[in-house]
């Protein structure tokens, strides 16, 4: 602090000013001591430099009488008064620093809480985290958050921190902040403490900030919950369910829509009782993926279920579906492929009429390991051209399994290279001779998922069935 030059300059000026003061003892001369001290502080000289300057001045006057000593005391005191100002400022600034540091701690706690609160997807979790944060960040005894019901059908929600109430004060100190979302009142966040507690303006500011961020998180969670409920419920309601048990028929299905968080795609399948005591088994693929395609699968399934009550020829049902797809209003046209089978289940065998509208032909796995396609290729449904469809009759005997599948099974690509195609499927099925339909479907699904490395680029559906083995067959 300070350099020798400035220090020496100080000593000389101090000595001269002191000599003036000794001569006239005037306020003007004394004011010079104040000026010197103030300059020393501004030049960041040390208080020790002033002490040394004082002593060199004393050496210069070389007098020890009371009057001189008294004047010296006055002069030194005056020259140190600015140092005293700074000294007192130290204690004050230390308090400022402490308060700012406390504020930093609160704001950091708030920032951490913000991340945690916004990471919560349920309103309940947000409320509890907010109450806990409120209590912690203002060091209070208890915090409560309450939000109104969004809707007359819902209940209001509250959370308290700590969860269990103590008896508490009859007249506690309290501060609160309103929760608002998109211009509407959401609820209130309140903090209470013992009655002698005085909450600071900063505590209120922090609570308000917390209420604000909690409001946003609650609003987001409510919006998310609403859309998620709609999305989940619709997808689950539209998705084909488990296969019904059919006497004499063993059937299995595997169904995997592509896309994270998606439960329903453009692939579909169905197995249901047709009007005439027979059964219908079908698989299909709507052009495209995701929810747009999914809505069309509902149309396809419901249409074919209704048509099957009136119509036993597969080609007839598919023609009606073609018309229904063409009649769709609003949406731009959607194409669809379907493989439709009308089944008469007998004793150890299944006779089926089969039509394929633009769909890959199903494969029969024979007990000897041979794999053969059945049916005849037909036209895509829903397009401009009247579909060409052919009904083919097939009988599945003991140990034969028919595998219906969508193109997601045979067009598995990785880095633009087909890694599982028709050839691989046939080769795999050749190893499935004698296996029941569920095992066959399982093997196919496993192979496809492995080839896709867990990331499907298209929906995958597999429907496999055959006559149930009849234990008495060879005995009877």
């Amino acid at each position: 602090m300070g350099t020798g030059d400035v220090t020496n300059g100080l000593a000389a000026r101090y000595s001269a000013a002191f000599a003036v003061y000794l001569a006239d003892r005037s306020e003007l001369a004394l004011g010079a001591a104040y000026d010197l001290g103030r300059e020393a502080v501004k030049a960041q000289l040390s208080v020790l430099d002033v002490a040394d300057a004082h002593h060199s001045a004393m050496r210069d006057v070389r007098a020890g009488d009371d009057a001189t000593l008294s004047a010296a005391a006055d002069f030194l005191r005056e020259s140190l008064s600015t140092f005293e100002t700074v000294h007192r400022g130290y204690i004050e600034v230390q308090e400022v620093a402490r308060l700012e540091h406390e504020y930093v701690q609160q704001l950091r706690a708030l920032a951490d809480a913000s991340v945690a609160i916004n990471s919560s997807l349920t309103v309940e979790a947000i409320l509890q985290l907010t109450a806990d944060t409120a209590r912690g960040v203002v060091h209070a005894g208890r915090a409560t958050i309450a939000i109104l019901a969004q809707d007359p059908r819902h209940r209001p929600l509250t959370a308290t921190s700590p969860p269990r109430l103590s008896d508490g004060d009859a007249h506690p100190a309290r501060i609160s902040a309103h929760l608002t979302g998109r211009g509407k009142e959401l609820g209130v966040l309140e903090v209470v403490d013992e009655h002698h507690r005085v909450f600071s303006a900063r505590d209120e500011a922090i609570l308000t900030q917390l209420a604000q961020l909690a409001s946003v998180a609650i609003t987001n969670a409510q919006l998310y919950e609403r859309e998620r409920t709609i999305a989940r419920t619709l997808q689950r309601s539209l998705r084909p369910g488990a296969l019904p048990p059919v006497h004499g028929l063993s059937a299995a299905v595997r169904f995997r829509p592509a896309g994270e968080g998606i439960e329903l795609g453009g692939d579909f399948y169905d197995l249901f009782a047709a009007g005439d005591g027979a059964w219908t088994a079908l698989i299909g693929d709507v052009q495209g993926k995701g929810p747009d395609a999914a809505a069309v699968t509902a149309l396809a399934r419901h249409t074919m279920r209704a048509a099957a009550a009136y119509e036993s020829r597969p080609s007839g049902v598919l023609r009606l579906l073609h018309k229904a797809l063409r009649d769709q209003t609003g949406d731009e046209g959607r194409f669809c492929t379907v493989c439709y089978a009308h089944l008469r289940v007998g004793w150890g065998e299944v006779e089926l009429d089969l039509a394929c509208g633009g769909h890959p032909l199903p494969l029969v796995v024979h007990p000897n390991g041979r794999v053969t396609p059945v049916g005849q290729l037909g036209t895509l449904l829903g397009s401009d051209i009247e579909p060409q469809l052919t009904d083919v009759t097939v009988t599945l005997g003991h140990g034969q399994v028919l595998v219906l599948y969508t193109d997601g099974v045979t067009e598995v690509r990785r880095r633009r290279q087909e890694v599982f195609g028709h050839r691989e499927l046939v080769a795999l099925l050749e190893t499935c001779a004698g296996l029941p339909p569920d095992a066959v479907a399982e093997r196919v699904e496993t192979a496809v998922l492995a080839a896709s490395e867990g990331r499907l680029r298209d929906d995958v559906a597999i429907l496999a069935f055959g006559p149930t083995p009849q234990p008495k067959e060879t005995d009877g």
Partner: protein
Amino acid sequence: MARDTSERIAIESDADVVTARQRARALAIGLEMPSTDQTLLATAISEIARNITTYAVDGRGEVLIDLVRDARGRRGVRVIARDEGPGIEDLERALTDGYTTGGGLGLGLPGARRLVDEFDIDTGPGKGTTVTLIKWAQRG
């Protein structure tokens, strides 16, 4: 608080500041204020007078110095400094020791505030500044 005496000093130059210091010191001696407190009072006057000569219009203002007595009979020196200057826009900042701008040394108004027993400031953009301070003769 009863007023004992009063003197009004126009502040236009450094010499006027000396007059104010002297007047205050004379009153302080009359109250047998300790010498260290006399020094602190004089320093506080210098700092608020400096505020006038630095910031007020034409560097002009006035200082009123008088003796006061509180309800408990305690006596002290009161200094009122007034100017018609631009006023202080951000008072909190002017009094928080310059730490927000960094490197302040805590002189000026915040320094003066620390040296006296009571300190009050009335200011605002365009309305000038009035600083009132009191140093009691007996310590609390």
